[in-house]
């Protein structure tokens, strides 16, 4: 940390640097040698089919999981070498938006957004109130501050969670599939919200998604992962023109291709005969 503060004029361009990452669940490799560079101030998208480990990757970056091999360096600090206190200090500067918002169900919208402020600062209540209302205004839900989480739609929950994630003005924010299961309107709202927040607050954003069109429309940089490896990397237009059949199948959503429609099985006729 101190080395960073001594040279504030020239922060390294890469905020998150992942090298040789290997992560296993049991004997199954979720990540098998992944390198990534997340650039400061940019919106980086990580795409891949369900179950490839996108959520796992975000948890690894946030230090909730430890890799068996390789290093994850966030703002100059190796995440899995930090002690409890250092890790928690680092997390105060990270925001994360969980798949379904993960709002605290026993608090109303206002108290949810105020939660990080009340936990980590000693601001007077009037200041907390102004800050919370400003954050809620940014996501367009200032009028909803008295509602409780069960009264919110899925899209609203995510926007409240977003307001909560930016409450402490973090340096980076991670979005876990923010568009999944949204109707076209709230999807559009979320897409532009993400883009605007990234630009206006000079945030570094990591966007995990398999909603190809929306993601490619706002991402500065794209990683496509599959079966534990990075299969494509580059700006959105480069990825779109990828020569890989697999990437083309994924981007265009074809039902058969390198990823077969059928789960591996013996010939149908054999199964029927022996059934």
């Amino acid at each position: 940390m101190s080395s960073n503060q001594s040279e504030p004029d020239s922060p390294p361009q890469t905020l998150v640097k992942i090298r040789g990452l290997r992560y296993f669940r049991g004997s199954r490799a979720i990540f098998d040698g992944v390198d990534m560079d997340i650039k400061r101030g940019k919106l980086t998208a990580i795409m891949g089919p369900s179950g490839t480990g996108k959520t796992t990757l975000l948890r690894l970056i946030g230090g909730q999981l430890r890799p068996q091999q390789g290093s994850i360096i966030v703002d100059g600090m190796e995440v899995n070498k930090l002690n409890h206190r250092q890790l928690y200090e680092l997390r105060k500067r990270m925001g994360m938006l969980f798949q379904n918002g993960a709002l605290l169900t026993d608090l109303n919208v206002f108290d949810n957004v105020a939660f990080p402020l009340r936990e980590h600062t000693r601001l007077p209540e009037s200041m907390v109130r102004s800050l919370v209302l400003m954050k809620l205004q940014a996501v367009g839900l200032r009028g909803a501050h008295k509602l409780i989480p069960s009264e919110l739609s899925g899209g609203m929950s995510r926007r409240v969670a977003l307001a909560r994630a930016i409450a402490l003005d973090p340096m980076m924010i991670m979005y876990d599939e923010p568009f999944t299961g949204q109707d076209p309107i709230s999807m559009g709202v979320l897409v532009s919200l993400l883009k605007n927040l990234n630009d206006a607050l000079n945030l570094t954003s990591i966007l995990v998604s398999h909603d190809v069109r929306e993601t490619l429309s706002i991402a500065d940089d794209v990683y496509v992962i599959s079966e534990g490896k990075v299969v494509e990397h580059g700006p959105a237009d480069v990825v779109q023109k990828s020569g890989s059949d697999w990437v083309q199948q994924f981007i265009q959503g074809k039902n058969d291709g390198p990823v077969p429609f059928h789960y591996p099985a013996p010939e149908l006729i054999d199964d029927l005969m022996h059934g």
Partner: protein
Amino acid sequence: MLDQLQRLGSASLNTLERLGRGHLFLLNVLTGIPGLFLRFRLVIHQIYSVGVLSLLIIGVAGLFVGMVLGLQGYNTLVDFGAEESLGVVVALTLVRELGPVVAALLFAGRAGSALTAEIGLMKATEQLSAMEMMAVDPLHRVVAPRLLAGFIALPLLAALFSAVGVMGGYFVGVGLLGVDEGAFWSQMEDKVDLFDDVLNGVIKSIVFGFVVTWIAVFEGYDTTPTSEGVGRATTRTVVHSSLAVLGLDFVLTALMFGD
């Protein structure tokens, strides 16, 4: 045969592992307790949900148990012409055993299961993960206040159970069956000892409060994060904490009243 042996082996290993995790979990939670005294509001909220909301069931159950003790005790004692000892019988049974034990069993069913379900659902809906990512340790913010609240609430509930039970025994014995009022109270006062009986009962309920709440919050925190997992964890809380209470009651009784 080998299969069964293997199953036995893996079951014991699992149990040992869970026990280990439970203790490690407890250690981590306990480090959060001192900080709570600066934010006692969190604990007060939890005392409300585990204590105040259990008041009614504990009070009603205590009254009925005391009334039954009054009836049964009278029927037995009257054969020996010793019905004036009814107060002693009712009070000793409640203060030493039934107060701490039945209150703890009811507490496990009412408050323990609710704690498990609440924490388990917070885990299943990623609220605990979200807290971790907001640099708030859920063991300190969510679990520790609940543990402390259970620890405070059960001894008070058990005392209420015993006190209401004595009143119930009094209504039945003195009010309905005509036991002499003076003898009822004076014999009780004479034979029930503050330290040997009342204090030992309170110690029991403190131990039970701690163990039941510990099991409840651990089961919630350790749950498989699905709705089915939460359901199973809730059942386990009630079963395990009830067994723990009854087993510990035997051990504590042997230690306290065993000579």
